[in-house]
């Protein structure tokens, strides 16, 4: 079938719903297609908070927030975009509150705020309470409220429709998407004046991750396949505190509430590495420190984890401020965080890189000002770039709501002002998708998806995680070459049209392979260490050569091209990063 709407948003997490809501309120005809029911989106898993200089608990300023974000990004974040985000954050949070988000409250009845890694008072002096939260289910509270509001505003939802390709005119204007309907197995064309990708992250590239099974980076891979670039893909955030072996996240809010990290000797090792902010140093640093402790034999019992100790925080705070975390520990590890320390290790958490956009969400084709008409991207799949080389905790949710809102408003306003017509659809817009699915379904002999996927995740975990060097990265590329060939031959046993999740698993494996390739190549290309990209063979930050964004293009099966984009600096000149 061909569906037709002014605006088609792909993805129904916080960023997609925010864009949908504001575009709809701005008068546009909006449809949201999502491979999961919107409430199942991974935004619902966000725990700890959303940062904004509301100053409800103590003095705070958006400029302090901006400074922390720039410093946290290891000076790779674009400062114009960061200023917009930090200035827009307070009013956007107030709008969320007005929409009904059930935030936790302080005694005065205002939105409660707590400490989080890397967020400080007065340009780095001491931790500040900036993270607005709804206990440790902040994302859940925001996601559900936004969905309720979209339902109220009669946004059209296509649930369990998976977008698999973009439709571009020969002139390079985006005029729709091709989507697979899970229930019926039909391939549909969505014809649109504007498409906005909001498909989230790709944590499933790695073996250990806090991300959902659905976080397979679809939007980014589709963009790459359309000949458009991805930005800063070498920057992958590993969150320091995933539950050991499971990867399930323990929010930084746990350390914000007073939790500390301990090594096998019972030493609070972060005091050594970050004397000012200690356990509340940014994630790149804390994850690297944990790996160092483990490598130097100070993991618990010599193993590959450390302890997160909440015992002194006390039952009251744990039960009221971190109830979900307490439940995870009890359910999955059988331990009580009130009485026992929690075994933790770094877990793949967040994609700093993604689809390059300007701060209205418009996708860029080659550096600043080169817009792809009709195409937007928001949320974790986009790279504005406000997070640069390392995202601060609470800044993703802010990014989703601030830039989701801006993109929604921009789309509606552009439609109003320009009264834009739909570009005619090219011939056979769904040909690529049909061929891809027929090819997969036609195979009768080969490996199952899961076997190949797990080899992929293993090599990425071993070779392209917290620490990298030329040798590990080259090993990964060699492995990926074989994995790519195997992925082309995987077999699905389910041949039915109805709710064929195995078929989508096979498609997603293809996306994961593509993304692994660009992550690894970008990491090999950047011969310095910055933020989450830590090259053992190039341990220093190199501003002279590398204070720039990477753009990677795929030009053929095995051929890639790099380009670069300068970092925008407004107020804060790069300095050495100390905490």
């Amino acid at each position, binding site marked *: 079938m061909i569906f037709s709407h002014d605006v088609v948003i792909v993805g129904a997490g916080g960023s997609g719903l925010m864009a949908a809501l504001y575009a709809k309120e701005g008068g546009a005809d909006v449809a949201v297609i999502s491979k999961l029911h919107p409430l199942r989106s991974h935004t619902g898993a966000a725990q700890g908070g959303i940062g904004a200089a509301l100053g409800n608990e103590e003095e705070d300023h958006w400029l302090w927030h901006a400074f922390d974000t720039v410093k946290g990004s290891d000076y790779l974040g674009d400062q114009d975009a960061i200023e917009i985000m930090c200035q827009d954050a307070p009013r956007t949070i107030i709008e969320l509150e007005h929409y009904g988000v059930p935030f936790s409250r302080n005694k005065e009845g205002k939105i409660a705020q707590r400490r989080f890694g890397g967020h400080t008072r007065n340009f780095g002096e001491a931790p500040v309470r900036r993270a607005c939260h709804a206990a440790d289910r902040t994302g859940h509270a925001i996601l559900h409220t936004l969905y309720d*509001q979209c339902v109220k505003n009669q946004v059209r939802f296509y649930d369990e429709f998976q977008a698999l390709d973009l439709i571009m005119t020969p002139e390079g204007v985006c005029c729709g998407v091709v989507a697979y309907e899970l229930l019926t197995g039909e391939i549909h064309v969505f014809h649109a004046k504007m498409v906005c990708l909001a498909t989230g992250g790709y944590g499933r590239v790695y073996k250990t991750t806090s991300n*959902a099974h659905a976080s397979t980076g679809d939007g980014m891979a589709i963009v790459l396949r359309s000949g458009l670039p991805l930005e800063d893909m070498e920057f992958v955030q590993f969150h320091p505190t995933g539950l050991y072996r499971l990867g399930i996240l323990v929010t930084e809010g746990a350390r914000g509430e007073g939790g500390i990290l301990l090594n096998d000797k019972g030493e609070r090792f972060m005091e050594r590495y970050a004397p000012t902010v200690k356990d509340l140093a940014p994630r790149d640093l804390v994850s690297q420190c944990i790996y160092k402790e483990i490598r130097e034999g100070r993991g618990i019992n010599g193993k590959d984890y450390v302890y997160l100790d909440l015992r002194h925080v006390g039952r009251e705070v744990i039960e009221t401020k971190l109830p979900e975390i307490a439940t995870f520990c009890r359910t999955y590890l059988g331990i009580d965080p009130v009485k026992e320390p929690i075994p933790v290790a770094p877990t793949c958490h967040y994609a700093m890189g993604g689809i390059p956009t300007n701060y209205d969400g418009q996708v860029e084709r080659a550096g600043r000002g080169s817009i792809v008409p009709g195409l937007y991207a928001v949320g974790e799949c986009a790279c504005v770039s406000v997070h640069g080389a390392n995202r601060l905790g609470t800044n993703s949710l802010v990014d989703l709501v601030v830039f989701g809102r801006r993109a929604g408003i921009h789309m509606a306003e552009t439609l109003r002002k320009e009264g834009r017509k739909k570009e005619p659809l090219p011939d056979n817009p769904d040909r690529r998708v049909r061929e891809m699915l027929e090819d997969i379904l036609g195979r009768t002999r080969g490996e199952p998806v899961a076997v190949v996927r797990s080899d992929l995740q293993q090599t990425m975990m071993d070779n392209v995680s917290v620490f990298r060097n030329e040798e590990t990265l080259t090993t990964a590329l060699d492995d990926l070459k074989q994995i790519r060939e195997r992925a082309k031959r995987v077999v699905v046993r389910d041949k039915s049209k109805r709710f064929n999740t195995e078929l989508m698993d096979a498609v997603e494996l293809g996306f994961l392979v593509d993304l692994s390739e660009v992550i690894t190549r970008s990491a090999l290309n950047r011969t310095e260490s910055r933020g989450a990209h830590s090259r053992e063979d190039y341990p220093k930050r190199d501003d002279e050569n590398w204070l720039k964004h990477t753009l990677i293009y795929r030009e053929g099966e095995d051929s890639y091209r790099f380009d670069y984009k300068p970092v925008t600096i407004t107020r804060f000149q790069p300095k050495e990063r100390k905490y």
Partner: protein
Amino acid sequence: MKVKVKIKRFNPETDAEPHWETYEVDADPMDSALSLLLHIKWHIDGSLTFRKSCGHGICGSDAMKINGENRLACSVLVKDLVKGEGDTITFEPLPTAPVIKDLVIDQSRFFEKYRAVKPWLITRTPPPERERLQSPEEFALIEDATKCIMCGACTHACPSTWADPEYLGPAALLKAYRYTFDSRDEGADERLPVVDSREGLWKCYTIFNCNEACPKEIDISRWLSALKRRAVMEVAAR
């Protein structure tokens, strides 16, 4: 340990009737029930179909009937489902809803009921510059209800739903409670008539099945009772 995993399977495209299939799986007692299903899908039979996403009890995708009780597959562990080696764990789709395939049910009715209760904050007074104030005590009234992940375990465990498919059911009613008791909400007069109806609150006989089914341990019956009292008061005041 070895366990037997018995699953009720049904693909309406090819099967006339549902049937049971049993798989033998090596499991760790600390594995979740979801990981058993994943193991089967990934390594034994790729056509086994179920929903899942977050893997830790927050997205609400994988409510199903496990050993006869409605639960989230990702939030219950093997050790709590078997007594010993070789025991059987059974998986079925949530009862009463049409089955799409295997453990996947059609939730469109469930979400229609949710939409019916006007599940959003209704305000009439213009918003202040800053946030609407809400005391911690006022917040405490709704906090439990805001934990709902819309998994459907409660509604599909409720005898009133089984008897009358039109009944709004605990999940939708809880959502009505969550907004009606939000100190910022001014829409009780719009929302209460929907729930104060034959297919609404009065079909709740406080049987507590919902409480028992809820993976988030929400005290649903308590909040629905409060909503009933409120509805009665509103009528009396009118």
